């Protein structure tokens, strides 16, 4: 983490008319770093990504916070400046490769469009660059494939094309919103390997939004665990998996089949976290309190502060440090 911070998010709050899906969220991304944002559906991961791009739906508002990207506050930029930043310095890959490509344009057109807009290349130069990019993302026969329409490609190939479009202008930050959720397991690893290789080769920072903890162990440098719009834990992946602190993180790890070597999911049911994330609505204190195995009365009155139990580590749960509770929670409910 020696590098200067490329992106710094402070106290970001996104508000819809009735709910706040992202609350007081802060995190940093250094140059060339991979930050994983983990959490279940509805925890505000994707909205955070859209907020970084300033692409939130109209009903949503950013009510407070700062997003500093290499010295500029993204929330204060006008529309024109933010547009020149999108695609050029910050790019995004979406969850659904099936629907994120324009079905009536060839993939070549879609790659060259951004190159011509941001880099001012001629049609011919952009086409050559697009062929290089398709080769870079390992699409076979790129000079033939460039004239294909998205429906002629498989899901994994389409996600590769999405990646090619996203990295076309050599962005400094790439946001990947669940890039492998819609893909086969065999393709997932290929796509993540590709992202990781591109991150190194193009010296990008990468924000990897996922609910798959297996991805986190292998590819992330730093992990933020989100629950109901708040950061509940942040750690290096090794530390997080060796010693999860927050009860929610523990629940997630216990619910994952890969973490116990001698345990196969056919042996018995996996441990689940009781309840659902909907219970966090209207909680005044810790959003996880309604589902927490070690909840105390104090948890429901005020939002727990982020504590610093070790270097590079944050956790939003004071109860976990109380004697005895640690043991109870570690048993997995």
């Amino acid at each position, binding site marked *: 983490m020696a590098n200067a911070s490329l992106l710094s998010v402070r106290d970001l709050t996104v508000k819809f008319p009735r709910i706040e899906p992202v609350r007081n969220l802060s995190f940093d991304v250094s140059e060339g770093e991979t930050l994983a944002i983990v959490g279940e559906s509805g925890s505000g991961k994707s909205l955070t990504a859209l907020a970084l791009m300033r692409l939130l739906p*109209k009903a949503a508002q950013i009510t407070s916070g700062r997003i500093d990207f290499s010295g500029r506050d993204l929330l204060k930029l006008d529309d024109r400046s933010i547009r020149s930043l999108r695609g050029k310095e910050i790019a995004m890959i979406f969850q659904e490769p099936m629907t994120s490509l324009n079905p009536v344009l060839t993939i070549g057109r879609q790659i060259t469009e951004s190159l011509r807009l941001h880099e001012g290349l001629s049609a011919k130069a952009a086409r050559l660059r697009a062929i290089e990019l398709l080769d*870079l993302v390992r699409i076979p026969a*790129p000079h033939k494939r460039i004239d294909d329409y998205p429906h002629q490609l498989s899901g994994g190939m389409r996600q590769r094309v999405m990646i090619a479009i996203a990295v076309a202008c050599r962005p400094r930050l790439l946001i990947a919103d669940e890039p492998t959720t819609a893909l086969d397991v065999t393709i997932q690893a290929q796509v993540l390997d590709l992202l990781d290789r591109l991150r190194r080769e193009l*010296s990008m920072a990468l924000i990897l939004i996922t609910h798959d903890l297996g991805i986190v162990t292998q590819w992330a440098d730093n992990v933020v665990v989100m629950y109901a719009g708040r950061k509940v834990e942040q750690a290096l992946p090794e530390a997080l998996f060796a010693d999860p602190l927050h009860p929610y993180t523990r629940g997630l790890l216990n619910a994952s089949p890969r973490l116990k070597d001698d345990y196969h999911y056919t042996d018995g049911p996996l441990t689940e976290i009781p309840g659902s994330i909907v219970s966090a609505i209207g909680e005044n204190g810790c959003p996880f309190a309604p589902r927490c195995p070690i909840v105390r009365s104090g948890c429901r009155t005020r939002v727990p502060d982020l504590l610093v139990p070790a270097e590079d580590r944050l956790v939003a749960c004071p109860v976990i440090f109380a004697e005895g509770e640690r043991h109870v929670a570690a048993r997995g409910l």
Partner: protein
Amino acid sequence: MSNPDTAERAPVVLNPALAYDRSPPKPDAPTPNEERWSNVHAPDAMRATTASAETGTTSANRALRVFLRNPNAMTGLIFLVLVVAAALLAPVLYPEDPLSMVARPFIWPGTNSTYPLGTDSLGRDVLSGILHGARISLLVGIVATVIGLAVGLIIGSTAGYFGGWVDDVLVKLIEIVQTLPSFILLVVLVAIAQPSVAVVTGAVGIVSWPTVARLVRSEFRAIREKDYVVAARSLGYGHVRIIIREILPNALPPIIVTSSVMVASAILMESALSFMGLGDPNLVSWGSMIGDGRELLRTAWYLTAIPGLAIVFTVLALNLIGDGLNDALNPRFTDER
């Protein structure tokens, strides 16, 4: 996580790993070393020279091929070409005014080789009238459609893309125009101004844009929520670029079908106006020929039937072409590859 390669960002070469040898690929029998690395770059990537940068028109060729293989579309196209040829050749074949009396009245079609389609009650040549009428019908149909499309596209895409109060205002405008019965509005517009071809064309365009605007608006409303539009915004594209290059091509199939039907209905509207005597009195059109023949329907039915058939077949041809274009332009409907 410090990366050694973070420091340098070479501006020219996209990626140092890509600065590979551009010499032509060696023929067969690769050395063991080459074989081991053959999958690092696709073998043909090295042939990505300027030659392949000029093959970007294949999709248009493909659409054309699909269109030309469609028998319905070809039937329509052939008939429309005939109508266009008739319109273009009319002044050459019949330089005389089609409204002038040239022969005995009521010559039935097929009885006199000089007048293959006969003459009407005043002794005017019906074939000459049909050919000259094609000029008016096509002119009014096409120009009115272009006017209606232009206005409808601009208003519909603005309303559908931006939504919010812009949408509210524009939808109210569309509704105000649509509450007036379109043909009565057309009659009023033509009656206020002098009935000339330009006025009729403009008036038909004015009454037909709300249909296009509503269609375009609903298409845009649906498409602007698609993931690829969000993806386009995430690449920093401006509103105009997204409207024209990302959304409009996706909205085109229904617009194209509608526009061919619009040409047809503009021809019908012009005919109806002429039938009522609100067309340009100095020009012959299919509608005015039907209007003139109406009173003689029992004795000389061919005077209404012949221009009527001309209208029917032209409208049908335009519809067939519209369907064919829809099939050809939408890549998902083509079963090629």
